[in-house]
């Protein structure tokens, strides 16, 4: 495995996280630099994810690199039954870096084992999506001026949502306090509460999305509650409205509070929140560009001048 690959947020240390954030900050100041001159990057999307792919491809283009790849497995040779190993080995002959998204969990880890080319995981099923975590961290860092000692409230699907799980893993270095707000069916799995316990992280669990919780938060991290998680459709309709954020609910929130969401959102944030200066989810998506530029340069061992 190439040591500069990024498969899971767990692969990088506290110091490396901070270095990536600093790098992202500098890319935000000046995103257009020819640091990847002459480099070719493959974006292999075995499942479609337009948002993530465009963000990575923009990052490469703004750094002067070139992109090859596919946006859907049906247009690749995996549709003919080629193994992932063979696809990765073939592509490795052509490129300096592989960015891959796959519907199977562990696909990116396996890819690192069959090639010497660095691999960036752009999401493997419900497992890991470290560039999303880095852009979340960068958004928190940028809006709060620090990562330490923050109160972060996570709302919605805490059971299946990989973004909230990875964010807990990454924030464990920075003494956070968490509020987990979810219905019984979608509450935070024990595994992540145990991780909090082991790291001395304070957390509380709530089924009510109450004013007290909102008003004590620095970050409100909303997630999408998906219909397919429910066997009872009535239950879904009930839960959906219970965990919807409306503008009026932010009336007494802290001045520094920001609302984050990995997007796409459906109904969990009402449209009337969009014009509130506390709404940060669209800026958050833009931060993905800088976070990914930082991750790409780390993977290629390129230092910013």
């Amino acid at each position, binding site marked *: 495995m190439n040591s500069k690959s990024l498969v*899971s947020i767990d692969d990088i240390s506290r110091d490396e996280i901070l270095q990536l954030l600093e790098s992202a900050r500098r890319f935000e100041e000046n995103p257009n630099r020819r640091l990847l001159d002459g480099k070719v990057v493959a974006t292999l999307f075995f499942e479609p994810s337009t948002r993530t792919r465009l963000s990575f491809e923009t990052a490469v283009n703004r750094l002067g690199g070139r992109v090859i790849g596919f946006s859907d497995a049906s247009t690749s040779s995996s549709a003919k039954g080629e*193994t*992932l*190993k063979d696809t990765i080995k073939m592509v490795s002959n052509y490129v300096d870096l592989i960015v891959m998204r*796959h*519907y*199977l*969990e*562990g*696909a990116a*880890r*396996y890819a690192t084992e069959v090639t010497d080319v660095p691999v960036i995981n752009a999401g*493997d*099923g*419900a*497992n*890991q999506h470290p560039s999303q975590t880095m852009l979340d961290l960068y958004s928190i860092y940028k809006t709060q001026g620090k990562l330490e000692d923050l109160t972060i409230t996570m709302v919605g699907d805490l059971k299946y949502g990989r973004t909230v799980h990875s964010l807990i893993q990454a924030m464990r270095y920075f003494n956070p306090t968490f509020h987990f707000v979810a219905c019984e069916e979608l509450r935070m799995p024990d*595994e992540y509460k145990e991780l909090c316990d082991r790291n001395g992280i304070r957390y509380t669990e709530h089924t009510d999305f109450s004013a007290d919780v909102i008003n004590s938060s620095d970050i409100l991290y909303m997630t999408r509650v998906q219909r397919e998680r429910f066997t009872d459709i009535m239950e879904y309709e009930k839960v959906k409205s219970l965990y919807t954020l409306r503008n009026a609910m932010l009336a007494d929130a802290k001045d520094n509070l920001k609302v984050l969401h990995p997007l796409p959102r459906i109904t969990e944030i009402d449209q009337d929140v969009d014009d509130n200066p506390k709404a940060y989810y669209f800026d958050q998506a833009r931060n993905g560009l800088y976070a990914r530029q930082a991750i790409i340069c780390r993977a290629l061992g390129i230092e910013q001048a």
Partner: protein
Amino acid sequence: MITIKSETPMNTQKKELAVAALRNGTVIDHIPSTALFKVVKLLGIENVGTHVTIGNNLDSRLMGTKGIIKIADVFFPEETLNRIAIIAPGAVINIIRDFEVVEKRHVELPDEIVGIVKCGNPKCITNNEPMRTRFTVADRQSLTLRCNYCCKEVGSADVQLC
């Protein structure tokens, strides 16, 4: 006058007869009854050509019931035997030479288990590519393994073999 023998020696004799003595070979003792046939599969004992004695649901003071496997004239590499620690962590290996136990030891769970355990997650890459599985021991106390690829955990009792 007829002397009636006490039952104890008879029972001991019967018990000894139930599991034949071995001149040379390997005895794997203290296998949980529920894991016995998994151990047989894991060690590929169905392909062994020498005498093999398999006993199951035998009385055990410590375990209630247990399984035992005796394989004549076969000596396994240590790492092969340690594989069974995943499903039979309390198993004891006896190496027999000329009817004497020359070595007795517990199996030891290796840190990484390669190509033995099947990942229970159908969306794991290991269940969809021609590749070997890899598990790391997440917790030795509770015998929990973690898939190196999809990160899902599995307890010893739920382990499925490849």
